[in-house]
């Protein structure tokens, strides 16, 4: 399947990352694969704890203990970031692939001046000539619209507002003209007007410098405003991927559909309650058998409890992992006029009384699977 015209700069293949806790192995990311083309803007969305951030951290080898990438390949221009040496990986971090984080206050070092923190990002690599470092630092702050930048480089993070700090983070991320910028919830801690400014900034950067952007967020509005392509993650797996239009106009996975339905709308009936997805994301130590979304899915079938769906093409460059898909749900289950979105509400399928499937013999799955089903 061809998703883009140009060759991908980043190819993630079968990435799995787990956290080895005292309670067991938390499979935070499971068998995730995607490509990022040069100059592309890719959004990764999902609820908290669905593995978005861990995917991003895995790319740069920044997963903290007790977490570890357990399988997969991350090919940056053909080099596998998971198998190269520490020094090689260090040189790619910040230089070729930069990352900005969710909370700009805790992500900036409180005891160093803003200017020093930006300059240090350049001095760590050889991309920017040493004598250009200082003027470029000032220039970057101007580019991200920090007023009075000549004076403010000498300030400390606590002297900046939230939006200004995130601009500093972006300036820092861009300082080495990276090919890929990974933005992990870059606007979450900011108020709406500042969010819009930051998004505009990212859009400009992508257009003017051709930087590829991976935007990680739980905010679908942010994705719609910036990204050309969207990946939807649930319980550590990709459940749907497609162009922004495909995802927003004709979502095929019930999870994506539910996410979009739960967006508050200004044109909605004032007395209508906000629709939420019932239930919680599954326990990643012992996830449900079959499709991970089955305990919350209104359209589930019998096979959803036993067989895990693979990502299958559902349109041009549009893939989803679902036995039903929304096309069928609309045609056969009346998804268009559905009021009750409780688990199994549209299909009428209840979970099997006794856990079924080959996993029965597994000692770990045995204890937790019935409980997970009872919750429904």
């Amino acid at each position, binding site marked *: 399947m061809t998703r883009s015209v140009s060759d991908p700069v980043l190819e993630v293949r079968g990435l799995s990352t787990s956290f080895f806790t005292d309670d067991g192995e938390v499979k935070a990311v499971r068998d995730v694969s995607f490509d990022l083309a040069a100059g592309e803007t890719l959004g990764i969305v999902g609820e908290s704890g669905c593995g978005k951030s861990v995917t991003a951290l895995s790319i*740069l080898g*920044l997963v*903290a203990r007790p977490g570890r990438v357990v399988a997969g390949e991350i090919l940056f221009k053909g080099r596998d970031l998971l198998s190269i040496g*520490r020094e090689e990986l*260090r*040189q*790619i*971090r*910040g*230089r070729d692939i*930069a*990352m900005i*984080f969710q*909370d700009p206050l*805790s*992500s*900036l*070092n*409180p*005891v*160093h001046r803003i200017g020093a923190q930006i300059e*240090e*990002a350049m001095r*760590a*690599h050889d991309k920017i000539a040493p004598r250009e470092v200082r003027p470029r630092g000032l220039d970057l702050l101007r580019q991200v619209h920090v007023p009075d930048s000549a004076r403010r480089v000498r300030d*400390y993070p*606590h002297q900046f507002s939230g939006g200004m700090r995130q601009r500093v*983070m972006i300036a*820092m991320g861009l300082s080495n003209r990276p090919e890929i910028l990974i933005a992990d919830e870059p606007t979450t801690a900011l108020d709406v007007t500042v969010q819009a400014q930051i998004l505009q900034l990212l859009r400009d950067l992508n257009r003017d410098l051709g930087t590829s952007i991976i935007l990680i967020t739980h905010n679908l509005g942010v994705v719609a405003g910036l990204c050309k392509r969207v990946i939807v993650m649930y319980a550590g797996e990709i459940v749907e991927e497609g162009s922004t239009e495909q995802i927003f106009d004709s979502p095929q996975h019930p999870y994506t559909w539910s996410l979009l339905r739960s967006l508050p709308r200004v044109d909605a009936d004032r007395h209508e309650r906000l629709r939420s997805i019932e239930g919680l994301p599954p326990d990643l130590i012992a996830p449900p058998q079959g499709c991970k979304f089955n305990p919350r899915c209104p359209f589930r079938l019998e096979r959803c409890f036993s067989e895990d769906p693979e990502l299958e093409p559902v349109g041009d460059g549009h893939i989803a992992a679902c036995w039903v898909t929304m096309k069928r749900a609309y045609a056969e289950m009346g998804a268009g006029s559905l009021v009750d979105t409780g688990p199994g509400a549209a299909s009428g399928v209840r979970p099997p009384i006794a856990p079924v499937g080959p996993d029965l013999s597994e000692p770990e799955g045995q204890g937790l699977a019935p409980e997970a089903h009872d919750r429904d």
Partner: protein
Amino acid sequence: MTRGTLIYIVQRLAIIVLTLLVVSFVVFVVVHALPGNAFISQRVHGRSLQLLLHEYGLDQPVLIQYWNFLKGAIHGDLGVSLYIRGEQVTPLVLRELSVSCELGGAALIVTIGLGMTFGVLAAIRQNTWVDYLLTTLAVVGYTVPSFVIAGLGIMIFANFLGSVTGGAIAYSPVWTGTYGTIGELWLPALSIGLYTSGQITRITRASMLEVIQQDYIRTARAKGLREWVVTLRHALRNALVPVISILGTTVVGILVGVLVIENIFGIPGLGKEFVESILQHDYNVTVGVFTIFALLIGLSNLAVDLIYTVVDPRIRY
């Protein structure tokens, strides 16, 4: 330095002066209340004793004596020694202070050098044998009294090493000059510093472990900084604040160590004088030594509070 900082310093200095007044008064009254006097051991009796007491003003009421002491002290004159009759206390105490500062300074270097190095190493190698070894050393350091370490050190490096090598390589526990050479200084400094560095190791380790969890450390790594830059420039700098806050008590610990260790190694500093002047009823010297000790503690605490502002820009007075 801001105007606020200057005002803060002036306020603190005023408090230090007040403290010195109280300390000197209490010590003055207490030493004079001790039974006996400076001249007993010098076998002076009867009329000649009365003359001596009169000469040094010791026949006056204590409060008058204190007032006279204060009048001199304001001009930097702490009076004269009664034991080595006529010797000026101020230059004596200042010379002894410089000797103690040499020892205390060396102990402080040992404390900070060993303590922070061990603390950082233990933190970045958490739960490995390096961590266990260094933490154990730290516990041993601050549970074994300094005089035990000093005694063991003398046994090993002076006696044992001396007899094994036939005296070719041996530590000489006798302080030859006023100031110690590095060869003489290291063991007393280590004896004091092992105790205080144990505290610093534990605080540094705990503080580092907390800091390396922080988001800005992840940012530093994401920027592609080298690991030692991340550890020292980003983690250690932030981990320093709690370390500095116990430096104040560490300085007191070193002063106490100086008291004990100077008497073991015969180092002619304030600590040795502290003990001797009390035994000799040398009132003026005792008051002088105590006052200098109080001044040292006051100033070092002020220094610690000012270092905070250098390490953490969020702290301003």
